[in-house]
């Protein structure tokens, strides 16, 4: 059996393709539960970016670029930054200051948990889940596009 010119053997490829959705789901779980459990936007984003890095190692940078180019990955990052700034500006418009937590006490994400130990309700945290999602998108896009660009640019024939 001949090895492909980029990436690893078919065994590794199949296992990587099977693991990829589970790693993405775990990353989404860490991002969405950032205000309840250990984790948050940065950690979950790093997990999601590591899933993309696994694909780059298993399949080669060319293949990943043909599926999702570096421009579309970095659009994800810009989207996250835009969402962060828009949430901050909404706090400026609807409440007192930039980035103020204007959703506490409202219907969406506004529930205030009982003081002390509690089982954790997803519908709490005010703007924190939104900011977590924004930063998660930003970190996934940023780290994945950095690794993709470095893998594409440091091949022997790239020069």
């Amino acid at each position, binding site marked *: 059996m001949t090895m492909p010119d980029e990436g690893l053997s078919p065994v590794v490829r199949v296992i990587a393709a099977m693991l990829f959705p589970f790693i993405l789901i775990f990353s989404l779980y860490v991002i969405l539960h950032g205000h309840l*459990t250990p984790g948050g936007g940065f950690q979950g984003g790093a997990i999601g970016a590591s899933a993309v890095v696994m694909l780059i190692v298993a399949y080669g940078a060319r293949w990943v670029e043909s599926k999702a180019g570096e421009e579309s990955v970095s659009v994800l990052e810009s989207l996250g930054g835009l969402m962060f700034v828009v949430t901050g500006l909404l706090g400026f418009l609807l409440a007192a200051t930039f980035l103020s937590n204007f959703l506490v006490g409202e219907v969406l994400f506004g529930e205030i948990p009982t003081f*002390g*130990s*509690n089982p954790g309700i997803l519908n709490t945290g005010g703007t924190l889940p939104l900011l977590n999602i924004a930063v998660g998108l930003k970190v996934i896009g940023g780290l994945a596009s950095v690794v993709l660009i*470095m893998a594409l*640019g*440091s091949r022997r024939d790239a020069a």
Partner: protein
Amino acid sequence: MINNVPFFAVMLLIAIGLYTILFKRNLIKIAMGIVIVEAGVNLFLITLGYREGGLAPIYTHLPSGVEIPGGLVLPVPQALTLTSIVIGVAILALILSFVVRIYRHYETLDSRNIRRLKE
């Protein structure tokens, strides 16, 4: 205090990283030294915020009988460390891409041979 063992560990990490930065010639090893210094600084922030026997400052399923706030570690140094880790990753990516460019231009990683800027 001589039993400040974590602080001594932090200082030794920073010293190892500084040694690598000052006395090694290979650019990759210098980048490794920068990362080791950064790990030492992160560990320093975490040890500054540790409270003896403290749990993580998260209320979800907190065991009953933990006194609040005395039984939880400090959250602000942990948040600063989170910031510092992400900035460290960004800096490492920039350093490595500089190293790749330097290697392509000079065909070497030895910092003694990369002197053309001086002349």
